[in-house]
Each structure stands twice: as C-alpha cells, then as structure tokens.
C-alpha cells in the first residue's frame, strides 16, 4: 500500500502520470489507476532553479549526491553515499580506430560498490525506501541490479529479496550470494521474473525498487547525464550512445539533459541520444527501424543478458526520446558484442561487460553509416564490468603462454634472443 512521505519537501511536488497527467502524492505507486500509464516524479523546477548553480554542484560531494537537488528524496541521502562520479575517459585510441576525433567513455564499470550503473539507481531507491518507512527491499533483475540492491541492503541493514532468471552468469549469481540476501532464482527469463515480482509486490509490503518505487528509482539514472555534462566542462555532447534494456536509462539520460538545459546549467543542448540493443533482443531498435511508436515483445536470445528484456517497460519512451533528439538505434550480433568488448579492452584498457560490447558495436556501426560524424563529440555509456560476464569472452581472448621458470625458455618462446654472457 502506498505510504505517505514522512516529511514534505519543496523540490518534489509528487507523482504525475506520464500519459493522462493525473497527479498523486509522493507515495509508493508506479501505475496510474485511471489510464494505466507509468508515474513519474514531478519537481518544483522554479524553486530548484532559484538555488541550483554550477558552483553549488561543484562544491558538492564527489558522488551522485552532488545532484541531490534533482533527485527524488525528501531528506538527506542515507544509502549509497559513494556511488557515482565515475571517470569520463578521453578515448583517443578507440576514437582513432572508429574514426572519431572526440570520443569519451563514461566508465561505470568502476561504480561503487558493485561495478555497474545500477549503484546509482539503487542509492536513490533505497534512500527513498527508507524514508518511506520500508524495512525490506526487493527487485527483479538481470543481475547487476540484484548485485547492487543486495550490497546496499547489507550496508543499510535492510532485509532483501532479489529475483533473477535461472540462467545468469556465475559472477552475477555469486555477486548476490556473498551479501546474504534471499536470492530467488526463477525458472524463466527476465520478463517472467518481472511479471512474478509484480504479483509479489501486490501481496507484500516491500519496496520493490523497479516495481512499486520505480518512479524514484529510475530518476537515479539521470546522474549519468549530469556527470557527463559537468565532466565535459558544462557542455552537452553531440551524441550519447546508450545501451537499451527496459529503455529507462535512455529515457532518463534525455530527461537529465533537458533538465540541465531548462535550469540554465547549460546554454545549448542539441545532444542526439542513440540506442544500442543486441540483435537477439531488440524490440525497441526494431520498432525504431520500422518507424513504429509501439513494439512487439520478444523472447530474448543473446549473450548480453543484462539487456535481455523482451518486454521493455519504458520502450515507448525510449523510442520517443531517441526520435525527438534526432538520434538513431541499431543492433549487433553476439560476435559483434564480443568484438566490441575486446576492442574497448585493447584500445582503452577498459573491460566492460557484454552490454558495453553492445554499445561499442553499435557506436562503430553508427559511425560507419555516417549517423555519427567524425567531428561530433561523442560519449559512450559503459554501464557494467566485464569481470561479471567472463563466460562471454572466455573463448575469445586466448590462453596464457606457459613456460618453465627459465630465462632461456622465456627468451626462446618470445623470440627475444639470448643475451646471456
């Protein structure tokens, strides 16, 4: 049942239906009871604008909480105080390889503490859950979200249930178990898990971060856009390439950029937001290519398991954001995903998970097609760490060279000649 916020706040007005505009107080509710549209947090932008400046943000903590004025919590942050503010890496080598003069990697493979962008959304969701009085948190997850919810719940001493598909990568399963939450492996794919969680959320008074408190949770993704802009020196790039699963991240990147523009923190905003999906699960990119504003749910079959959402909750809005921004969407095969992962690792020294391979693969295609031009400043969002999806590249990276502990053997093996006296 929805709970009232313990304190009112001036920055958050409440929730509003994205479809019919019906307004609600800031409770735990995610679907409009009139038209079934998704609910979104509504802010008092006038009041925020009056006090929010670049300087004020720059003086904030080195975490996503420097943007607390644009995040949906009523009080002070209490969970995930070190998440966010990850490096924006100037990727000269990869840019040279792909034919881009100005390429950056937003490197959330080193997000704190669970090495994916989910640490952002979970910090916001759990802080909000706590202030709404919940003691149990839960989620439906393709892996990274579960890892982050489990870790933050442990640190916040909250009870925790994470629901995952039965066929996840070993590291993502282990990355739950170590924190000792209740790990529930569901015999089915993510869409089955999500469906089950909706039913459970109707029965138990838990904060399901991506079900009943989704409107708050999803806002955390905006911080990726904020950080990119701030780290570029308060400039919005020409392109941001975003991996797409539920479509929420892409939608919130677009929202974050527009908020910064509306608040006067950037003068110009002409960013094109491009979406990247795996061919084996591309309901949104397929709709984009067909020029539709609706999509057909699919049964995922891809190594990019973190993107394997066949019935994406924010698919419509992701399509809309990409189209509005003038961006594009494309897909890559499993082989191209592995190529993308190894290319990023071997040019920039960044080991991304499969979703990163999707992003780099699609970036490469968009440059080839001329949809991203050489001179356009481009940022690729790399949202998860390759150590969590080792299975994908295990057979593509070769083996170590084994030698006996002998200098001669070493030099012979590598053709270095014998310099012994």
């Amino acid at each position, binding site marked *: 049942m929805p709970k009232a916020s313990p304190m009112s706040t001036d920055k958050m007005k409440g929730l509003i239906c994205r479809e019919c505009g019906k307004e609600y107080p800031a409770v735990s509710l995610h679907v409009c009871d009139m038209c*079934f*549209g998704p609910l979104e947090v509504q802010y008092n932008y006038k009041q925020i604008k009056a006090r929010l400046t670049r300087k004020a943000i720059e003086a904030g903590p080195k975490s996503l909480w420097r943007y607390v004025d644009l995040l949906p919590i009523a009080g002070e942050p209490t969970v995930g105080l070190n998440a966010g503010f990850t490096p924006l890496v100037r990727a000269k080598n990869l840019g040279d390889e792909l034919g881009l003069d100005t390429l950056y990697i937003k490197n959330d493979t080193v997000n704190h503490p669970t090495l994916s962008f989910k640490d952002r959304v979970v910090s916001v969701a759990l802080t909000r859950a706590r202030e709404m009085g919940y003691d149990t948190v839960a989620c439906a997850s393709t892996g990274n979200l579960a890892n982050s919810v489990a870790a933050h719940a442990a640190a916040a001493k909250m009870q925790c249930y994470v*629901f995952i598909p039965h066929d996840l990568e070993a590291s993502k*399963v282990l990355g739950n178990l170590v924190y000792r939450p209740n790990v*529930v492996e*569901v015999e089915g794919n993510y869409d089955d898990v999500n469906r*089950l969680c909706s039913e459970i959320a*109707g029965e138990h008074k838990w904060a399901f971060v991506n079900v009943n408190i989704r409107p708050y949770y999803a806002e955390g993704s905006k911080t990726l856009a904020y950080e990119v802009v701030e780290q570029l020196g308060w400039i919005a790039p020409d392109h941001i390439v975003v991996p797409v699963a539920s479509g929420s991240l892409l939608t919130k990147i677009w929202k974050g950029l527009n908020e910064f523009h509306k608040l006067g923190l950037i003068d110009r905003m002409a960013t094109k937001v491009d979406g990247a999906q795996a061919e084996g699960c591309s309901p949104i990119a397929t709709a984009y290519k067909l020029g539709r504003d609706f999509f057909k749910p699919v049964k995922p079959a891809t190594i990019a398991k973190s993107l394997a959402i066949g019935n994406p909750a924010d698919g419509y809005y992701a399509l809309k954001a990409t189209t509005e921004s003038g961006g594009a969407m494309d897909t890559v095969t499993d082989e191209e995903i592995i190529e993308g992962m190894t290319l990023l690792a071997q040019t920039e020294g960044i080991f991304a998970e499969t979703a990163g391979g999707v992003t780099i693969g699609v970036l490469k295609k968009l440059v080839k097609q001329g949809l991203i031009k050489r001179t356009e400043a481009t940022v690729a969002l790399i949202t998860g760490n390759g150590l969590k999806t080792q299975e994908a590249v295990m057979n593509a990276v070769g083996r170590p060279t084994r030698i006996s502990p002998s200098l001669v053997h070493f030099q012979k093996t590598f053709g270095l000649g014998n310099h012994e006296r």
Partner: protein
Amino acid sequence: MSGKGSMVKVRIPTPLRPLTGGKSEVAAPASDIQSLIDSLNGQFPGLKDRVCDDKGEIRRFVNIYLNEEDIRFLKGKHTPLKDGDEVSIVPAIAGGTFPGRGPRLGTRGTPCSVNARGRSGGCEGRR
C-alpha cells in the same frame, strides 16, 4: 456488418473488475474491437473511459489481445471479431495482481538458492 455482431469472450484485468461487478470474464456482442468496447461500456458504464482516451483511441498502456495476438499488429481497433474469439484487456505495466495471458508464473517452481539469516521458512513470495 450485422447489427449484433459475434459473441466474444473478454478477460477483464483486476483494476477494471470494480466496473464488471468483480467478474474476471464477460461476454459481449461485437463486430470489431471498437464495437466491443462500446458494447462493454453499455453493460459496464465507465469502462470505455479507462480503456480509451478522450479521442476514443485505445490508451497506450492498455494492451488488447485477440486470441493472444496484440491488436496493434492486426488492425487495431478495427480488428474484426468472430464467434468464439477471446479478447484480453491487459495493462501494459503490471500494477499488482492481474489475469495475464499465457502461463501463470506464480504456479511454477521458484527455488530459493539461499534463504539467508534464517528469517523465514521459505520463499514468502510463493503463493
């Protein structure tokens, strides 16, 4: 089109059941989806407002399936109906329990890999 049309079976989601007197399945005469919605609204006043916007278009986050196929991939609200057809109205985003199409997930096994800290005897989510 005949005036009465065919008799079709319609599955009603939980949030709309207050309008159907709690019934999860109803029958209505209709020749196509649009006339079905009108016909349902005759029996259960107010239902059309929930399913359609003020221009009469089916709302974006309401999915309507004819025999398991999303009508967006058929002829939308002009999709013709015949005797014995089954129509499901399903909110696109689950807001709690609702009748779905396809297998009910909650009836399958959900093994708990870990039931840590000894706080509960099993998976509370299983019903």
